[in-house]
């Protein structure tokens, strides 16, 4: 009787002992390892992460909010890198870290193309998958200009803020809704979208084509033909030629408008888009609207 009882006890206790001793042993090892390989964690990191919007868009240049928070915790005094949070977050971060608030230049995404259906033609009838990436992979898409906006709206889908809308076959950015996160910049297969400083009256070359002038004229009536008139007209040296394409350096541009006046094809235009007005046409903030 006693033997049976002893056997019953041992058949329960031995497994319990073994299992719990393994667990205890591993627990002790974890504690030791954590002590040996302890990494000092900056307690400010959590606070910074709480202030950042947590969109993880990567517009600050880091892999996500975590990376930017880490960099600030390590002593980076620039709190103005988050375009999603804007001035508000920059001020809050500066207050939290005790550094000076940087001058925050808001940015906005901008589509460098105005080749609407009125200005371009179709080379062929595309009946494939509806999407810029798919259309681009088939002979650069059906548009007469192989550098221009395809208008299938991959950027519209990619935008988490609903700031991009399609009108007349090209993409427009609603500058009020845009947070300059840069997701559309990555998505566009034509690399037409750039993030520029948000001057409502900004002058931009709304074209990205690299063809010689004659070929551009044949395929789009508002393309940059590389005549260099704007380069000569600009008093501030803000316009340079990238091959046959004029490029405006936004940090040098003073919005004087001299370039727009001399541009023979109206490829240079001013103003950012605001959104669709009540008639469903894109509304424009600049002085001159897109020339017809």
């Amino acid at each position, binding site marked *: 009787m006693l033997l049976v009882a002893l056997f019953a006890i041992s058949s329960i206790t*031995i*497994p319990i002992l*073994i*299992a719990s001793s*393994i*667990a205890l042993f*591993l*627990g002790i*090892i*974890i504690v030791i*390892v*954590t002590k*040996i*390989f*302890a*990494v000092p964690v900056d307690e400010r990191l959590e606070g910074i992460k709480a202030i950042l919007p947590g969109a993880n868009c990567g517009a600050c240049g880091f892999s996500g909010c975590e990376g930017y928070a880490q960099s600030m915790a390590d002593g980076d005094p620039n709190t103005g890198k988050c375009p999603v949070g804007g001035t508000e977050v920059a001020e809050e971060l500066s207050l939290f870290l005790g550094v000076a608030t940087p001058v925050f230049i808001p940015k906005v995404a901008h589509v460098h193309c105005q080749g609407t259906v009125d200005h371009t033609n179709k080379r062929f009838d595309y009946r*494939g*998958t*509806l*999407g810029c*990436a*798919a259309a681009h992979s088939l002979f650069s898409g059906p548009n007469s200009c192989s550098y221009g906006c395809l208008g299938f709206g991959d950027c519209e889908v990619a935008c988490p803020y609903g700031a991009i809308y399609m009108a007349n076959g090209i993409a427009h950015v609603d500058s009020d809704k845009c947070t300059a996160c840069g997701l559309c910049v990555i998505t566009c297969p034509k690399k037409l979208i750039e993030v520029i400083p948000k001057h409502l009256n900004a002058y931009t070359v709304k074209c990205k084509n690299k063809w010689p002038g004659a070929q551009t004229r044949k395929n789009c009536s508002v393309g940059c033909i590389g005549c260099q008139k704007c380069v000569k007209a600009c008093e501030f040296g803000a316009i340079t030629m990238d091959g046959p394409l004029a490029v405006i350096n936004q940090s040098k541009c003073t919005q004087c408008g001299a370039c727009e006046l001399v541009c023979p094809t109206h490829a240079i235009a001013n103003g950012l888009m605001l959104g669709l007005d009540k008639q469903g046409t894109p509304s424009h903030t600049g002085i001159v609207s897109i020339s017809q």
Partner: protein
Amino acid sequence: MREMLIILFSAILVDNFVLSRFLGICPFLGVSKNVKTAMGMSMAVIIVMVIASALTWPVQAYLLSPLNLGYLQTGVFIVIIAALVQIIETFLKKAIPSLYKALGIYLPLITTNCAVLGVTILNVDQNYTFFESVFNAAGAGLGFMLALFLFSGVRSKVDRADIPKFMKGLPITLVSAGLVSISFFGFKGLIEKLFS
């Protein structure tokens, strides 16, 4: 050496953990959206699988088997794997921060990955020796990597395709996973021919 190679290659191709044994389906569907994340996850799985096999084999052989405590296997192995992942994470954070960053959140995710538990239990079921177990684990990890690599390629194609609305998302992913799995049936019988 020949036996080791047979074990290694059959774990990669014939008895692929994801596509033939259907273990580790969760990360297979979860992190196969692009090649970069798939590779990060696979590297973490390979490391953990090999070390977990090397640790659980002696526990089974010298502790559980002699005491006839085979039924404790699942619980004890899970505890060992969880502790192991924790230790590796702490170690990497200090010693190799770049690798820790690259593996990122995938390392803690492996704690409850059935593929890792699967490989340790299969080592015992097949009566493998210590080195055979390690080779089996390495093969299983490489097989996992191969499956994720192939499938992330398939998915990037599927993303561009014009899919009917009711099939979008998980349904088309599961169907394409099934087709990739069928393709791996082509490897059945490969090992016998290769090493005969």
